[in-house]
C-alpha cells in the first residue's frame, strides 16, 4: 500500500500533503494534551512494531504481496491521534531510508495508513466493544473486525488514488503519465487482495495482541477507555 514516487501526479500529491498538514498539527495538539509521559515508550514500541510488521510481506502465490500495518492496534491502545503520529514516523523512515513509499506520495500514504486506517479501525472497535467487559471475547472480536475494516478502507482509498491518475493525467496520444491503471482495475485489485488475504493478517494480529494484553495487562486496554 506504499505508493511510490511517480504513480501519483503533482495535483494528487499536493492535495494530500495539504490535507495531512492540519491533521498532523491537530494530532500534535491533541496528543500533547492526552498522552501521559509513561505512555510514550508504548507509543515508541507501537511505531517500531508497525515499521517491522509492514516489512513482513505476505505472498499471494504467483501474484503480488502485501502486509499488515498495525495502525488499528496502536489506535486501540493509545487513541487514533497518537496512532497517526506513530504510523507517520514509521512511514517517513520507510520512505526516506528504505525507498518504501515515495517522497512525493508521502502525504497520500500517511493519509491512507496513518489517518484513515487508525481512525476507521478505532471507531469500529469502539462501536462493537461498547459496554463490554475488559476481558470479554467481544473485545477480541471487535479488535479483529476493526483491523480488517480499517485496512480495507485504507486499501479502497489507495485504489481510488491510483485509479484517478489516468483520468487526471495523460499525453495527447492517450498514454498515462503516472499510474496507468484506472478505477476499474486499481480499486477491485487493491480492495480485493486486502479483503481476501492481507485484511485477515491485520485482523489476526490485532485480535491476538488484544487477547494477550487482556490476560497480561488489562489496564492497557482500559486506559484509553473513555477518550473519544
Amino acid at each position, binding site marked *: 500500500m506504499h505508493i511510490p514516487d511517480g504513480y501519483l501526479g503533482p495535483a494528487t500529491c499536493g492535495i494530500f500533503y495539504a490535507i495531512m498538514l492540519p491533521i498532523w498539527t491537530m494530532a500534535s495538539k491533541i496528543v500533547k494534551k492526552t498522552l501521559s509521559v509513561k505512555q510514550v515508550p508504548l507509543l515508541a514500541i507501537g*511505531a*517500531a512494531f508497525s515499521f517491522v510488521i509492514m516489512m513482513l510481506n505476505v505472498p499471494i502465490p504467483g501474484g503480488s504481496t502485501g502486509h499488515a500495518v498495525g495502525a488499528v492496534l496502536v489506535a486501540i491502545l493509545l487513541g487514533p491521534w497518537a496512532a497517526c503520529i506513530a504510523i507517520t514516523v514509521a512511514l517517513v523512515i520507510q520512505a526516506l531510508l528504505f525507498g518504501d513509499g515515495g517522497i512525493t506520495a508521502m502525504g497520500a500514504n500517511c493519509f491512507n495508513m496513518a489517518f484513515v486506517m487508525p481512525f476507521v479501525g478505532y471507531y469500529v472497535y469502539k462501536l462493537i466493544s461498547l459496554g463490554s467487559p475488559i476481558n470479554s471475547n467481544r473485545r477480541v472480536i471487535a479488535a479483529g473486525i476493526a483491523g480488517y475494516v480499517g485496512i480495507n478502507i485504507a486499501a479502497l482509498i489507495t485504489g481510488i488514488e491510483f485509479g484517478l491518475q489516468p483520468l487526471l493525467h495523460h499525453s495527447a496520444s492517450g498514454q498515462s503519465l503516472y499510474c496507468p*491503471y484506472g478505477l476499474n482495475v486499481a480499486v477491485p485489485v487493491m480492495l480485493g487482495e486486502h479483503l481476501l488475504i492481507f485484511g485477515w493478517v491485520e485482523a489476526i494480529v490485532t485480535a491476538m495482541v488484544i487477547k494477550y494484553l487482556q490476560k497480561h495487562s488489562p489496564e492497557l486496554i482500559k486506559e484509553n477507555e473513555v477518550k473519544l
Partner: protein
Amino acid sequence: MKLINKLWILLGIVVVISPLGLILPEHFKAGSAWGEWGADEMKELVGYIPQGLEKLSTLWSAPIPDYAFKGWEEKPIVALSFAYISSAIIGVIICVGIVLILGKFLSKKK
C-alpha cells in the same frame, strides 16, 4: 517481568522473523506489491513507461533501497535476509528514537 519489557521482546522476535517477508514471497513466486513496480516492470506490464513516472521514480535515492544494501541485489537469500534484519534493527532504533524525542514535547506535563 514488566509488560513493557515483554513487548520489547515481542518486537525483537518480529525483527528476527522479518526475513520471512522476503523469503515467503520468493518461495511462492510472488512479485512486487500491486502498484509498486519499478520502471522496467511497468514496461513489461503496460508496454511503456509513463513519462511522469519515469521522471519522478528516480527523484529520491534511498540509502538502503528495499531493505537491502546497495550492490547486494544478486546476493544469495541468506545475505539478503541479513540485510533485511539489519534494516529492521536500524528502522526500529530510529522509530523508537524519534518517538521518544517527539514524546518529550508531545505529552502532558504532570
